[in-house]
């Protein structure tokens, strides 16, 4: 339904997008996942028409909309800071796009009521945006964006400003909304957990390029690159370690922390020698870090219960099941996430 063809964009000679191509199907929930500065917001703004690409084309339903004004695109945006009109009440905000299109008054009233009910804000129709909490503003912004039934809804880190509790709740609601409305969502976030929870498909962005696109399980279980492996589910990248699987020189292995086993030295334990460096609580589990004597690399294990006897400074064997090794392209040596 939406197709981006090798979009590039630079601001003041700084390249932000280096050829982004992406296809979004009707009714699909796709997430652009990446750290700040990777170009995800710029991509969204180009789809909305708020920014012009330097090269590349944007197609919506096979129609080239690259040069179409934002108001003529059947695409709406939920802005990061909500961008509610401060001089209009909730009702007027939500009905804005219908008034612009000169829809009949009675119909506007009905559709505003429906849209507010959809986001459970029908009791707040007469409030001003300044009188609402962050989560409520968020709902109003969503109602305002979906009321005109666009083909595509763009959401720019819509839950970024909310606390964790509310964020979890809104994730579920957004997912429900998307299913009820049948509109395609392009969702931006830097939170991998959010991306894994909500998306049909995830596109991991880095340095103005899509590094990998696939379903949540594809991205998690079969990352192409060490960057994706680390960014999604923070896998251990084990460079210079003998692997079971065959590898080319610019490849390395990644092992999820839940597959890393740490054992105290004993006669029947095997693995690579290492020293425990850190032990932290993470919910019902412990996260234990160890440094490999072989390469000095840090590995994290999250499969130990809180009763684990391991203590920092202790010598351990580090091991993992050969089946849990993932061969990835090594492309992010030492880069901060």
């Amino acid at each position, binding site marked *: 339904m939406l197709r981006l063809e090798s979009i590039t964009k630079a601001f003041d000679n700084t390249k932000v997008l280096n050829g982004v191509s992406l296809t979004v199907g009707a009714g699909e929930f796709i997430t652009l996942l990446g750290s700040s500065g990777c170009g995800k917001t710029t991509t969204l703004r180009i789809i909305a028409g*708020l920014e012009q690409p330097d090269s590349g084309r944007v197609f919506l339903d096979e129609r080239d909309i690259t040069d179409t*004004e*934002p*108001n003529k695109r059947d695409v709406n*945006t939920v*802005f990061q800071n909500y*961008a509610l009109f401060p*001089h209009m009440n909730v009702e007027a905000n939500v009905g*804005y796009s219908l008034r612009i299109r000169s829809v009949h008054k009675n119909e506007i009233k009905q559709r505003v009521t429906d849209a507010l009910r959809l986001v459970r804000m029908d009791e707040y129709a007469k409030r001003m945006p300044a009188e609402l909490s962050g989560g409520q503003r968020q709902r109003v912004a969503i109602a305002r964006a979906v009321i*005109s039934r666009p083909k595509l809804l763009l959401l720019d880190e819509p839950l970024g400003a909310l606390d964790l509790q509310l964020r979890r709740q809104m994730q579920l609601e957004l997912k429900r909304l998307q299913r009820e409305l049948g509109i395609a969502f392009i969702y931006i976030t830097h939170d991998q957990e959010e991306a894994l929870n909500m998306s049909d498909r995830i596109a991991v962005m880095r340095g103005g390029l899509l590094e990998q696109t696939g379903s949540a399980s594809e991205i998690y279980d079969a990352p192409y690159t060490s960057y994706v492996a680390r960014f999604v589910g923070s896998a251990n990248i084990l460079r210079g370690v003998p692997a079971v699987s065959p590898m080319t020189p610019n490849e390395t292995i990644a092992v999820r922390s839940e597959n890393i086993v740490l054992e105290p030295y004993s006669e029947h334990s095997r693995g690579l020698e290492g020293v425990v460096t850190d032990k932290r609580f993470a919910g019902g589990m412990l996260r234990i870090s160890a440094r490999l004597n072989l390469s000095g690399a840090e590995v994290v294990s999250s499969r130990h219960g809180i009763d684990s006897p391991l203590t920092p400074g202790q010598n351990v064997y580090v091991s993992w099941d050969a089946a849990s090794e993932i061969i990835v392209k090594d492309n992010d040596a030492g880069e901060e996430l």
Partner: protein
Amino acid sequence: MKAIKRDKRAAIAAVLPMYIFTVAFIAGPLIYMLVMSFLVRDESWGITNELTLRNYLHILEPVYLETFKQSLRLAFITTLFTVLAGYPAGYFMAKLPPVWRGRCMMLLIIPFWTSSLMRMYGWIIVFRANGSLDSILMALGITDKPLKLLYTYPAVAVGMIYALLPFMIYSVYASAEKMDWELVEAARDLGASRFRAFLTVSLPLTMPGLYSGIVLTFIPSMGLYFIADILGGNKVVLVGNLIQEQLMRVHDWPFAAALSVILMILTTLFLFFYRKLSHSDKLEGLV
């Protein structure tokens, strides 16, 4: 207890000078003027203690009503043109990159380094018969003889607009600069054309600036008598000129006082409507 008492005394001592200042220099003269407007002028000089309403009845004479009418009309024209020229200027200035905003602000401020009186004399050179304006128009073949614009109503209007335009630009700018431009993007995203987005979002949100700009131009334009003096000669007489003339030449102080009271009532009414319309007690960019 003692400490509280001392604090209280200190607080009174701190605000007392302000009260004295206000009473002595603002409330006092106002009351003096109000009282004087009901008194009778003495034959030769000063005032007598006799009470009368004659000064106010005097204002109802056609000559003076005409003066008020002319002043109000000029104030409206001045305000209208400062809005038309100043609103876009202030609005687009706020959209410039910060460096250019600073430069524009400098351009607005620089004229104030020279006395406004001097700058008004500058306009004489422009407007006088065969002055710069005439020379340019005739050289371009637009007119074939001097327009003789000096000492006309339009010349005074131009002078007023010129003198008050910076205030309008500044107050609109102050409003527009604070505005969140993402709101305009949101409006465009929701289907509004550039113009619709301006009408429904930018304009309402910069209204406070526009309102204070109007107050800042309308009220002074009723009183800037020296502009009418310099560019209007004796042909354009405004309330300000009338008051000055009654005070300095005719020495009819009570009548001048009555004229001032009416002028003040008019401005107060205007401010009242301003507050009604803008739902605000503040003057944007001033407070």
